[in-house]
């Protein structure tokens, strides 16, 4: 199981780490700028990029088989289903006036 040729090299690790630290600094900086409705998407966007970096490099998703990708993807999909369908109720309350304002 040891594939020395494509094993994670120290260099990539450090590179990814540097990128993660930079992104953290950027997201903190961006938090102090008022971008009206864009603040939340930017913060979550940066967080998602960081998450993908961690998963792709540190968690070796780049060397994983398709099943692992499907698993990770499906957990995201089901989490989104839970949040979005719950929000579909919370946000549309009162659209019709009644009931459940």
């Amino acid at each position, binding site marked *: 199981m040891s594939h020395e040729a494509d094993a994670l090299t120290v260099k990539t690790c450090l590179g990814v780490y540097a990128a993660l630290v930079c992104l953290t600094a950027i997201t903190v900086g961006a938090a102090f700028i008022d971008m009206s409705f864009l603040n939340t998407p930017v913060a979550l966007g940066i967080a998602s990029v960081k998450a993908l970096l961690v998963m792709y490099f540190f968690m070796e998703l780049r060397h994983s088989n398709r099943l692992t990708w499907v698993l990770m993807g499906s957990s995201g999909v089901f989490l989104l289903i839970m949040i979005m369908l719950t929000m579909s109720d919370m946000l549309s309350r009162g659209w019709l006036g*009644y*009931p*459940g*304002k």
Partner: protein
Amino acid sequence: MRAYDFPLFPEQASTMAPQVDYLYFFLIAISVVFSIAIAGALIGFAVKFRRTPENQVGHRIHGSTVLEVAWSIIPFGITMVIFGWGAWLFVAQSRPPDNAHEVFVVGKQWMWKLQHMEGRREINELHVPVGQAVKLTMTSEDVIHAFYVPAFRTKFDVLPGRYTTAWFNATKPGEYHLFCAEYCGTQHSGMIGKIVVMEPAAFQAWLSETPPILPMSGPVASAAAGDAGSLSPVAAGEALFAQKACITCHQPQGGALGPSLVGVYGSTVKLADGSTVTADDAYVRDSILNPTGKIVAGFQPVMPTFQGQLTEEQLMQLIQYIKSLKATPPAGAGVAQNPPAAADSAS
């Protein structure tokens, strides 16, 4: 009660009841057709293809895509018909008509407290006129309850901290069960009452008569005693508005610490953070209980909270009073007819 004399079908006593029943019959018909088809095939095959000395092994049939598609698509079409029908009924049941007789309902462990907008109060009993829509605005003092009248096919949950609405239009004078349908604790099955449907004239007479002193004991009696008098909610709300010193900051002509509340109800209010909100029951309620949550543009968050200082009835009375302020605008008819302008002038 005799064993051979028991109901299999609930009474129909509202405009909605026959509508729900039609769907019920349709669903039963569909179910019977499918059940008979499936059971018939099951039993028929089981008999015809039973194992016999000559029939020891079945035939190797692996399936049929045509059949699979057919028995996916056809039931799907039928379910969509059911969905459409159910959805249509639901929307109709969700939208109370405009000219409804209004009743305020408070559920608490384990009783129903009801008050007509004209002022008369009732406990575990609701008198309504026949042939007129009745709209219920409901809330709970503790846990979740549900207001359920089987004869009207009407049910809706009653939640603490929130107003929900139900409505019905009774079609037949008589007395009907009122149940709490959402489990609410020890005496859940005791949280029952009755709906008395009366002829309109009799109802009007009932509405204006002085209520007898209720010969009750226990929590019901004390609750009734606390609500002595039958001022209309608007009048009671006006009194409260003065008593709780709301009037000090919310003066009709504005200019005080808080915005004027004249014409606010039903209008669109601009908030300090730039967003807008429609001033409905929920908004007014929130603003009383949690005043710093949504600040009207141009005002400071200085109002104290009234959480825990007002009963659900008092809250409702205040809301009714604030609602009534729209009807008699001091600044002319323009305010009521132009809510956004009213909101602007209020802030």
